[in-house]
């Protein structure tokens, strides 16, 4: 049978559903249409590896890279130890370094060798006991232990300096106990670091990372998929049907919201199980906050896609305006309070800022409602603003 003949079996009497086919025009939301749109989007998500990739694979990869790659906990810092004239006190001092997990002391023969090791980055610093150290210690006290640090990485140098001071103070205490003297140490510092007593940088980096990754994913998913509809011409076919723009937007937001939230769940599970970050706040607060943030990020993505004509441009914009700002200006690693005031203002328009603060609090400090609510309000404000702009910008037009 030829293809044309197949068409001939047209039931001649079958009248079409023309009269009942919803000729009425409604500007509200029609449930059938919305259901159809959401179902369509779901099928597409399931069948399109790229949206699954962005929602699930990207967070896993990024969390692994960041989680393992970004750490500010210096351990086993290699330091050169130069002892011009060995003595019992010096060995005792050095043993303090040997016992500390923070250091890996390397004994060097002379200061020249140690200096060279600093230049070639074999060691990060030098601890130098000059030949008159022992004599001065007994005669006058206050004998200088010279510490030379490589200041190129100032943050690391400062942390190392703190560790060295700690070793020194311990040594002094030991020394005093042994000799039975009371040292002149007027004030001592006793510190308690709340929420993260063991000072694991991962505990705060991982929640921050989740915020950054979710910004990227929320914005990228939506901006790319809408741009894709324009690019493939499906949008043109869609908008000439009686569907309203509201329905199209809700039809996009709902499925990608759930997709993004699944990515979020995955990230939280990884944080707790792989990176052992304590989760002290309530799951409910975490869910509510994440949902709010996800909506804001998706609205941002929608806005990007309205501005960008193609997937290519949308992807580019999404990466530029979400990733770097979220990384630098969200307070994720760099303290916002220490930035110049104009830049502090700038951070207020970075949605990730609020999510970082919210997540770090919920994970490490627990339910601190005033903080939670303030951040939620900011997010709501931003989300509402984005929504308004989208509403104003998106019309059922090609221009």
């Amino acid at each position, binding site marked *: 049978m030829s293809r044309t003949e197949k068409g001939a079996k047209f039931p001649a009497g079958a009248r079409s559903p*023309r009269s009942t086919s919803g000729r009425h025009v409604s500007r509200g939301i029609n449930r059938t*249409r919305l259901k*159809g749109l959401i179902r369509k989007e779901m099928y597409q998500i399931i069948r399109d590896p790229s949206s699954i990739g962005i929602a699930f694979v990207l967070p896993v990869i990024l969390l692994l890279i960041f989680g393992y790659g970004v750490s500010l906990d210096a351990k086993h810092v290699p330091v050169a130890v130069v002892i011009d004239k060995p003595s019992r006190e010096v060995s005792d001092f050095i043993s303090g370094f040997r016992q500390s997990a923070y250091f890996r002391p390397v004994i060097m023969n002379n200061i020249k060798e140690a200096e060279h090791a600093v230049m070639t980055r074999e060691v990060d610093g030098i601890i130098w006991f000059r030949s008159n150290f022992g004599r001065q210690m007994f005669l006058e006290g206050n004998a200088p232990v010279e510490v030379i640090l490589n200041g190129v990485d100032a943050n690391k140098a400062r942390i190392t300096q703190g560790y060295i001071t700690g070793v020194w103070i311990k040594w002094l205490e030991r020394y005093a106990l042994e000799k039975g003297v009371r040292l002149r140490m007027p004030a001592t510092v006793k510190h308690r670091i709340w929420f993260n007593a063991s000072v694991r940088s991962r505990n705060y980096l991982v929640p921050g990372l989740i915020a950054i990754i979710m910004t990227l994913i929320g914005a990228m998913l939506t901006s790319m998929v809408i741009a894709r509809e324009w690019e493939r011409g499906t949008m043109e*076919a869609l*908008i*000439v049907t*009686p569907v*309203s723009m509201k329905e199209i937007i809700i039809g996009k937001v709902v499925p990608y919201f759930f997709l993004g939230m699944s990515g979020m769940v995955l990230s939280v599970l990884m944080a707790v199980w792989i990176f052992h970050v304590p989760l002290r706040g309530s799951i409910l607060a975490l869910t509510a906050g994440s949902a709010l943030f996800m909506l804001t990020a998706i609205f941002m993505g929608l806005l990007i896609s309205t501005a960008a004509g193609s997937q290519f441009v949308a992807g580019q914009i999404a990466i530029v305006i979400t990733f770097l700002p979220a990384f630098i200006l969200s307070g994720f690693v760099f303290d916002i309070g220490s930035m110049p005031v104009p830049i502090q203002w700038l951070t207020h328009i970075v949605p990730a800022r609020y999510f970082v603060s919210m997540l770090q609090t919920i994970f490490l400090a627990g339910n601190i409602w005033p903080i939670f609510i303030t951040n939620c309000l900011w997010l709501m404000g931003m989300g509402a603003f984005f929504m308004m702009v989208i509403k104003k910008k998106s019309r059922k037009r090609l221009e």
Partner: protein
Amino acid sequence: MNHEEGNNARNESLAMKKSGLCMTIEGVTKDFISGKRTVRALDNFSASVKKGIVTGLIGPDGAGKTTLMRIAAGLLVPDSGHVSILGMDSTTDFLAVQSSIGYMPQRFGLYEDLTVQENLDLYADLHDIPASKRQARYDELMNMTGLAPFTSRLAGRLSGGMKQKLGLACSLMNVPELLILDEPTVGVDPVSRRELWEIVYRQVRDENMSVLLSTAYLDEAERCQEVILIHEGIFLGQDSPEVFSRSLAGNSFMLTPDEGQKRRLQEELSHTDGVVDAIILGSKVRLVTEEPVDAHEVERRFCKNTGFRAESVPPRFEDAFIKLLRDRLKDRGEIQDSTPVSRTPVEGNPDEEVINVRNLVRKFGDFYAVRGISFSVRHGEIFGLLGANGAGKSTTFRMLCGLLPASGGHLMVAGKDLRTAGAEARANVGYMAQKFSLYPELTVVQNLKFFSSAYGLEGKYRKERIRWALDSFQLEPLKDVRSADLPLGYKQRLALAAALMHEPPILFLDEPTSGVDPLARREFWRHINALAQAGVTVMVTTHFMEEAEYCDRMVIMAQGEILAQGTPEELKARFRTDKNPNPTMEDTFIALIEKHEAEKDRGGH
């Protein structure tokens, strides 16, 4: 909508019914800003579409067809003027318009990762068709389009023609009163094209639907009951196609030149006063004159240097369209009597096989794009590779150019396999890629400079060739325009110029005329004819069946196989019947495909 407005609309709609119009376009103007320039897509355009017939919107690419249809569907807002559909204004009342029309954009937005059924469901949902009526409608549409066996297949896996039919089915979901189709047959193979037309006719017949359909294929105009002609955004005329062609009754002739003289004859005729159009059709030349004359006078008056016999033939719609376009250009003083490109003759023996392909195979994974094809091209021939999209012609082409390794078989171009031969071997070949691939940011002259250097031209010779290109293709006035801003016809010229910079003895052309208007296409073929005349071997792919007539010999491909090869006459002669004594290339193609399918079915049992 308040009561009074509703009444008004109803009154207007009544008025329309009386007048028998379903769409009126009044003084529509639309500008687009592209870069620094403003492009006028529609210029004070007025026309109307009658109820219950198929109206064709005919014009070349870039004429403003799509813009007009988008305005009608409420997707664009005109700068001035308005479009009224079934009594509703398509700008202010677009939601109402959109629920009464069916609209199929150029590349119908099928969701390729949804199945046929899921696509149907989506559009049924969007039109809010009650569940009780759905199944009947689905069955109806699937039977009509012949897609019933494929409902669970992903739309992306359908062939081009099937996709187009599914798109049509989706836009017919709510049985619209007016169906707007934007170039529904572009890139579709002739068999599917015929089926699409069947469906459209059926809607008009059974549902009393009105159809507005745009196309750049001039032969399709004759299938419409009425046509609206558009060129550069301007209304050129509206009437039934017969009225247009009738105006040229007695002006059309088929000339049979002496053996081997067809190109010379056509070239000479093109220069002659009083000639509207002269094109090669196989071994013959079709002539359209300014004034009606009889066949004997044609033999006496035109072209004294070349011998031929003339016989009168009925006019075609295309003849009238070409005349209209020419007259327009002439009025504006833009018609240039150009000479085709000059080329130093290429030495060679006419029997020498310049391109030789034996048992060529190309696999992509499990899929055979090319299944063991063989053919050869002789010196100075224009050789065509014909087939629908996806027939394997581009794959074959890319293998010949050395852009793609073959999976099996043997191929030679000028005695070498370009894939393995040294870079110098490629200097023998000129290549014009699909879509006129030029560097969009570079100006005309920068493009020419770049390509001449890339082909290794130097010094004085390079300067001469750039000058030659600017002169022969009338690019001089546009030489500092960025190629992205060139009109399509000029892009085509520039692309050809770039491919000819190094005077290659072999020329590869991949879909060289797609999208350009009929005049530009004619000019292009004049250049190609001149090159072939000088002994250049030309290999060309096309999905325009009519263009096959320019070829000396050709192969017709489908599904990676060669269905037939030979001269256009030989191929057409195979399907000459009493019912159809003069089959067109398209008839031939359809017959070949049907025969092939029948053989395959038999083989399957």
